[in-house]
């Protein structure tokens, strides 16, 4: 399974729809302080099923919806869609016949959430289960957040065990 595209709309500082295409190799993300680079990481963790607002630097989940700027009002909805390409590896059984898999997550300011896999409604559990087997689950070693690189070295021996277990 390969990551192909990420569409962000109304999530944190992304008031307008933004599309990031990931080609093979190394994609660099650059820009001044505070412009929204780590917000892309949060968008990715969120669409993959992150349920704790604190892990997205917020107090409650509504904090991830665009809250306005000096020239724009707050929005009522945040939506992120992640498109993956199926190259035969690491894809859970029930999705093996799809060429592409699109995962969408929406949150309305009134607290309602919507989840979809390939445009068909599903539950949050379906999304977390989908990603669990691939190694990119929300706790895994494949997303290293800003300032956290050395945490695996500074963690307690029992906590390090969990990381090895996820790769087992």
């Amino acid at each position: 399974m390969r990551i192909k595209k990420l569409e962000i709309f109304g999530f944190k500082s992304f008031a307008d729809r933004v599309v990031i295409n990931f080609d093979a190799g190394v994609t660099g993300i650059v820009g001044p302080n505070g412009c929204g680079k780590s917000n892309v990481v949060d968008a990715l963790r969120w669409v993959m099923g992150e349920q704790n607002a604190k892990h997205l630097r917020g107090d409650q989940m509504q904090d991830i919806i665009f809250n306005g700027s000096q020239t724009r009002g707050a929005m009522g909805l945040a939506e992120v869609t992640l498109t993956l390409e199926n190259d035969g590896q690491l894809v859970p059984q029930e999705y093996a016949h799809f060429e592409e898999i699109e995962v969408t997550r929406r949150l309305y300011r009134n607290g309602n959430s919507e989840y979809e896999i390939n445009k068909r409604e599903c539950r949050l559990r379906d999304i977390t289960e989908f990603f669990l087997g691939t190694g990119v689950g929300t706790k895994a070693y494949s997303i290293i957040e800003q300032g956290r690189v050395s945490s695996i070295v500074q963690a307690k021996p029992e906590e390090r065990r969990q990381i090895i277990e996820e790769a087992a």
Partner: protein
Amino acid sequence: TKQRFEEAFRAINERFSQVFPRLFRGGKAWLELTDPNDLLNSGVEIFAQPPGKKLASIALMSGGEKALTATSLIFAIFLIKPSPFCLLDEVDAPLDEANVDRFSLMVQEMSKISQFIVITHNRRTMEKSDQLYGVTMEQPGISKTVHVRVKEASLSTNLGSEMAY
């Protein structure tokens, strides 16, 4: 699951002891189980000895040495169980110029097995990417992205000015 944990531990440990000397240009590193008789609960200890130094507790290592040791372990796990992508947010911030070069060379190599997404302020790391996304806030408070193919644009000031606040 005891069996699987032991196999994963052994495989990751082997890789870790290969990746570390490549990032540090020497030295050695390895993992040990805190309680080998209790595979279900045992913790994992990390030993790392940079080149020319005596083995000491990892707490005494420097900020850059800790970051590089952690990166070696993450890459080792990645080599055993590749996942669809790996995302590193300013992992190169504590590194000096020589280590940034070694780190980004390794990222390029790893990107042959899966995609890497690297957030950085370091020009040396930007130059080694295959494609770049600039995130800007031309309208204050609102993020937009600008796509740049690295081969096309020399990382001159034009990217700099595009990215300026």
